[in-house]
Each structure stands twice: as structure tokens, then as C-alpha cells.
């Protein structure tokens, strides 16, 4: 009996083109768009400024400074009207020891301005060191050579060892797990729609008159959607690994255990199916289920770090994120993709997801049994 019900459920979802688009096409497109669009934000390549440089001083030193600024990869020379920042080397800059004139035309954040200042300062200090070195060479080669040991490159000055928890994902590593998690929650709509339609058309009542229990009805929903969720997750991973790199964006790498990935995505799908069933047995109409499912997904996604990455959230919001099952799933995926996590590493998240799903399914079965007993009145 169960196998017939599972087969029926598969056929219904496979023939629902809208559901298939919702479950597979939409998350895949989102992964592609978000990964490409956010590429520079996550890799830090966006730390560059459009500058317009004017040199009103004819000295060799000011010419060298101009050249250094133009060579700096953080500055892009553009026309005055397109510049975020205008740098002017004033007349008599060297002779009268004048300051550079900086005009900030664009609205920049204070940390961006500080970053610009640091980059420019590095160019100026490098040049001044070179001038000092040349002067020193007139007196002592040895003293002048000592200045070569002075480096302004942070990589030569300090080694940074990052705490694993501070690892920041690239755009693909962030968007693939986010959309696996969020995309899986899209299943709420087709699960609830099929279930409510069955109830409205008296099919559930008919099945009930054929001695089909609430357990069998629930189990027949769980199994196909667990399988669909796994297919969905692996398609999203495939998009991250093979499609996203075609757009000059970092490919997704599974640094951790594949077994852990399967375990985590299974646990996540249990929680999603549980929530979907809970909504399905309580909603009266498909519209109601879609609205509740949609709002819940968006809220859990917003809180859980799907829309805004958790690492850029304030501490209080990061704590709040922990109440969302999407956050548990996302943390687990990031552990696997980013930190080379294994089953032990994602055990907490997976168990929480399984527990959430089991509780939701348990409540759904109790409500469904009650409704069957009352004849879906």
C-alpha cells in the first residue's frame, strides 16, 4: 500500500511543472545570479576607487608620486566627472612642502575613506623612503641599504592565522548553501498544495474510507520529498561546481566529507517536510498554505543568514539567527564546504534539524489523526 502511495506522490509532483520550476530551476538561477553578482564583495576585490589625478607640480618627485598612484591597483584613473575621489598634487608640492589635496566626490563610508587614506599613505611613504635612501647614499651606502629592510607590505610584516570560525566564504560558497537551504523550503508549497487539494476533493476522505491511516498518509508524503530534496541539493551543488565557474566566478569546492553532506541534507529535508506537513494539515486552502509557507520561509531565511550572511550581521542578530532551522542547515553546509567538515562536525546541526522535523511530523500526525476521526469536518 505504501509503495503505491509513494509512487502516486512522485507522479503528482513530477507532472506539476510549476512545482518543478520552483524546486529546481529557481534556486539554480538564484545561485548563478547571486554568485556572479556578489563575486567581488566576497573576495574583497571591490576595494578599489575611481580616482582622477591632477599633477600641478612639475618636479621629478611629484611625477614619480603620480606614477606610483597610477600603478596602485586600488586606484583606477578615470575622468574627473566619473571620479569618486580627486587627488591633486598642488603646484610647489615639493618645493614648499605642500599637502596633497583630496576631494571626495562620492558618498563613501568612513571605513572606505580610511582604507583609501591607508592606500595613498603607502604610496607616499614608499616614495619618501626612496628619497631618504637616495640622500643617505650620498653619505653611506650601508646606511642607505638598511632602508631596504623596511617593508610596507603587510604580508612581509606579519603572518595571520585565522580562527576557523572566522573563515569567510567566497560568493559561491555562500550562495550555494544558502539556496540549497532556501530552495528546499520551497517544497512547503507543493507538499501543502497536493495535500490540501486531496482534502478538498475528498480524496483523503476516500483513502480514509479504504482504511489508509494517518501514518501511511504522512509517510507517503515524506519519502518522495526526501528523495526530491536530495536531488535538488545535488543539482545546486553541481551548479556551484560546474556552471558558476563558466562566469568567471569561483567554483564550489567540497572540502569536507561527502557523507556528512548527504547526512546534513537528509536532516534538512526531514525538517522541511515536517514543517510542510504541519502547515498542510492546519491550512484550510492552498492560498493560505502558500502564504504561510512563503512568509515563514522568508522570515526564517532572513533571520537564518540566507539573505544576509551571518558573518556580517551584528552579534545580537547572529545570536537570533540560531533559532532558525535554515541557520542550522547553512552553518552545517559552510562547515563542510569551507572548513572541510565531517559528520562529527555537522552532528549538532543535523541532530537539531532531525529533532525539529520529528517534532513537526509528530504534531502533524496527531492533528491529522484527529481530523480523520472528525471526518475532515
Amino acid at each position: 500500500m505504501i509503495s503505491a502511495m509513494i509512487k502516486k506522490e512522485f507522479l503528482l509532483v513530477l507532472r506539476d511543472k510549476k512545482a518543478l520550476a520552483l524546486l529546481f530551476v529557481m534556486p539554480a538561477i538564484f545561485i548563478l545570479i547571486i554568485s556572479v553578482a556578489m563575486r567581488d564583495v566576497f573576495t574583497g576585490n571591490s576595494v578599489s576607487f575611481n580616482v582622477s589625478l591632477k599633477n600641478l607640480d612639475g618636479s621629478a618627485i611629484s611625477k614619480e608620486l603620480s606614477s606610483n598612484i597610477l600603478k596602485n591597483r586600488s586606484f583606477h584613473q578615470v575622468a574627473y566627472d566619473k571620479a569618486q575621489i580627486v587627488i591633486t598634487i598642488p603646484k610647489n608640492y615639493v618645493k614648499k612642502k605642500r599637502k596633497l589635496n583630496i576631494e571626495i566626490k562620492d558618498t563613501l563610508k568612513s571605513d572606505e575613506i580610511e582604507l583609501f587614506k591607508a592606500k595613498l599613505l603607502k604610496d607616499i611613504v614608499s616614495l619618501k623612503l626612496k628619497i631618504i635612501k637616495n640622500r643617505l647614499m650620498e653619505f653611506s651606502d650601508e646606511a642607505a641599504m638598511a632602508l631596504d629592510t623596511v617593508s610596507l607590505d603587510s604580508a612581509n610584516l606579519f603572518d595571520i592565522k585565522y580562527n576557523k570560525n572566522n573563515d569567510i566564504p567566497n560568493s559561491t560558497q555562500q550562495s550555494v548553501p544558502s539556496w540549497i537551504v532556501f530552495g528546499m523550503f520551497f517544497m512547503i508549497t507543493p507538499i501543502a498544495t497536493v495535500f490540501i487539494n486531496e482534502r478538498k476533493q475528498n480524496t483523503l476522505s476516500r483513502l480514509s474510507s479504504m482504511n489508509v491511516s494517518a501514518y501511511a498518509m504522512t509517510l507517503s508524503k515524506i519519502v518522495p520529498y526526501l528523495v526530491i530534496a536530495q536531488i535538488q541539493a545535488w543539482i545546486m551543488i553541481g551548479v556551484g561546481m560546474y556552471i558558476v565557474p563558466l562566469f568567471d566566478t569561483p567554483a564550489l569546492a567540497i572540502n569536507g566529507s561527502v557523507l556528512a553532506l548527504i547526512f546534513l541534507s537528509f536532516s534538512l529535508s526531514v525538517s522541511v517536510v515536517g514543517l510542510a506537513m504541519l502547515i498542510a494539515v492546519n491550512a484550510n486552502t492552498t492560498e493560505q498554505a502558500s502564504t504561510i509557507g512563503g512568509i515563514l520561509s522568508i522570515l526564517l531565511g532572513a533571520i537564518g543568514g540566507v539573505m544576509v550572511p551571518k558573518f556580517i550581521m551584528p552579534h545580537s542578530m547572529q545570536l537570533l539567527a540560531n533559532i532558525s532551522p535554515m541557520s542550522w542547515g547553512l552553518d552545517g553546509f559552510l562547515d563542510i564546504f569551507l572548513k572541510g567538515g565531517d559528520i562529527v562536525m555537522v552532528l549538532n546541526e543535523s541532530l537539531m534539524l532531525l529533532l525539529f522535523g520529528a517534532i513537526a511530523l509528530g504534531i502533524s500526525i496527531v492533528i491529522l489523526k484527529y481530523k480523520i476521526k472528525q471526518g475532515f469536518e
Partner: protein
Amino acid sequence: MVKVSNVVKKYGDLIALDHLSFEIQKGIIFGLLGVNGAGKSTILSVLNGLSPIESGEIEVFGLDIKKDIEKIRQISSIIPQNLAFYDKLSVQENLDFFGKIQNATKENYTKAIEINGLKEVLKQRASTLSGGQKRRLNIAIGLLNDPKIIYFDEPTVGIDTKSRNEILKSIKSYKDFGTTVVYTSHYLNEIEFICDEVAILSHGKLVTQEKVSEAGNLEKQFLELTGNQDD
């Protein structure tokens, strides 16, 4: 034999069945006649254990509805007024699915298809069937467990005259297999055409129960007994 004794069923404050009692003999076609809201669909749900009752006793072929509901469901079948099957599945897939749920034999499966004239449309998606074909599929699903008793809840609602006559003829033929049929309708001519016995319900109460052949002018009786309620 079906025995309904003093059954009360409420929906909130509304009394749907008010101390209802009647008996149905084995192998007959029994009509339940009444206007909308008389309690016809409710009694069918109750007889199949789909709707709980407040009080009263029900016995179906010697089985107590409170104790033996699973056994009762194995020997009975309800054909709901709504089309309770899956639009996205073909006729064959629907019959396969409901057949497997009820452990239908190949013989029952073939019989359900033949009686309802579905052989030509087996591969067709249920959503593309005509109104009459959909009704027949709805009925065929109910025959898959070879029931001893079938409850029809207004199976001819919303279909054309030709399909209606075909369905009525096929229902009449179930008697030949020894099946007991309970048929609800608010169409007098249908009851007169297929039923052996009729019970008229009004506001959840039994107004009268008699053999159709002895009922005389059923329409007159129906209007007199139920008042001037239109159908």
C-alpha cells in the same frame, strides 16, 4: 443488512441527524430521498465511519460500526459526490493506485472498467475526461474492493442526460451481483427508476420508508411530507 438505530449527529449546534432509525435489506437498491441539507450525505459518511456520531447504534452486515469499522470498510464502498481521484494521473494510474490500496484482484479491476465503460480511456489523463467519464471513473474506483454494499452520494450531479442514464443503468446492474446499493438523490425520477425501497429524510429525521412499487405517487408524497421546499 444495515441497521441504523436512534442515530444523532451534530455539526456544532446544528443537528444533522436527529434520532434517525431505519433498516436496509440485503441485495436491494435503497434510495435516500431529501432536499439539500436533509442529512443524506451525512448518513452515508456515518455509515462508512468517516464521521463520528453523538449517539445511537449502527450495524452493517452484523458488524458494529464502533468496534469493527476496519472490517466494515473492507466490505463497503462510498462513492463521494465530489470527484475524489487524481486529475494529474491517467485513468489507469488512478485505478492502479486505488486498486493497490484495497488489494483489488485482477477480476475486480476488469469488472470495474467494463461496467463503467472506461476501457477506451484508460491511458487518458483524468483531467481530460468528459463530465460523465469522470463520474464513471469515480464510481469505478469504488468497485475495486468488490463491496457487498455501495453508498452512492448523488452520483449524477452535473452531468448530461445520456451519461446519467448510463450511470443509472450500471448501478441497477449491481443488484445482479448481489450487491446492496444505498443511493442518495434529490431527483424523484432517479429513485423511482432504480430503487426498490425509499426513505424520505427531512431535517435529519426519517419522514417515511416504503417500497417504491407500493409508494403510489412518490412526488406528491415527497412534497407533502417535506413541505414546499424546492430541490
